[in-house]
């Protein structure tokens, strides 16, 4: 580039932003993080050491945030308006599940974590009912 063109060239780049999603979705991601919160609550019950409890609470918050993130991605990016025909209560499922995550954050009751797992399983059923496994995962994993 000559000095003139270098001088003329813009210094700032702007984007016309489009998403390029990878298109891989699976409620399993949310389920695994939710299982972590379950196990942490279980372990907290058997250990009264304050240092352990502090760490456990911190990690439970972190895992719970990841559950929310994975649920949000499914809700916003995987599910489409046409899926409402198959799963009419879709929005309710997600609203309740993400609210349940907040509950698990504040709770040390295993039943709350268990309920969250069940709610994620309902979302998993919705994902399967809308063809999620075939449409979003890469085929060819060993069974």
């Amino acid at each position: 580039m000559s000095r003139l063109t270098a001088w003329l060239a813009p210094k700032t780049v702007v984007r016309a932003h489009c998403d390029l999603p990878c298109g891989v979705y699976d409620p399993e991601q949310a389920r695994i993080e939710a299982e972590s919160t379950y196990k942490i609550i279980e372990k907290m019950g058997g250990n009264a050491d304050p240092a352990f409890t502090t760490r456990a609470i911190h990690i439970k918050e972190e895992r719970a945030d990841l559950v929310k993130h994975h649920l949000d991605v499914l809700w916003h990016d995987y599910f489409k308006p046409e899926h409402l025909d198959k799963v009419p209560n879709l929005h309710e499922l997600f609203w309740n599940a993400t609210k349940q995550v907040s509950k698990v954050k504040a709770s040390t009751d295993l039943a709350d974590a268990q309920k969250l797992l069940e709610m994620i399983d309902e979302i998993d059923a919705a994902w399967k009912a809308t063809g999620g496994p075939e449409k979003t995962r890469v085929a060819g994993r060993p069974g």
Partner: protein
Amino acid sequence: MLPAIAPGDWLLVDPTTRRWPRRGSIVVFREPSTEELAVKRVAGRPGDTVPFADGFLRLADDEAWLLSDAPEADAAAAGYGPPVDSRRYGPVPVELLVGRIWFRYAPLSRLGLVR
């Protein structure tokens, strides 16, 4: 934003704009939440009513509705997801406005006012 703006275009921006320019103008602004510099077309100005979700939304005194030119189907055909614009992040307040794009000075074959 094809065909109005193509990747690699060199553009002049009027940074003196303090209010949302008229509908149809292309603006540079900071994307809400990401703060990234982006270009979109003004589709609604303060006080306008714009379609949103299943209803309508009235824009506040400082807000604009900014949309991509690409129809969703074209973006999908090109391998992109839905355009990220006001349909995603809602109305954009005027403090995020950087300027109005008005002129393209390169490539020379496309020299001229940006519409």
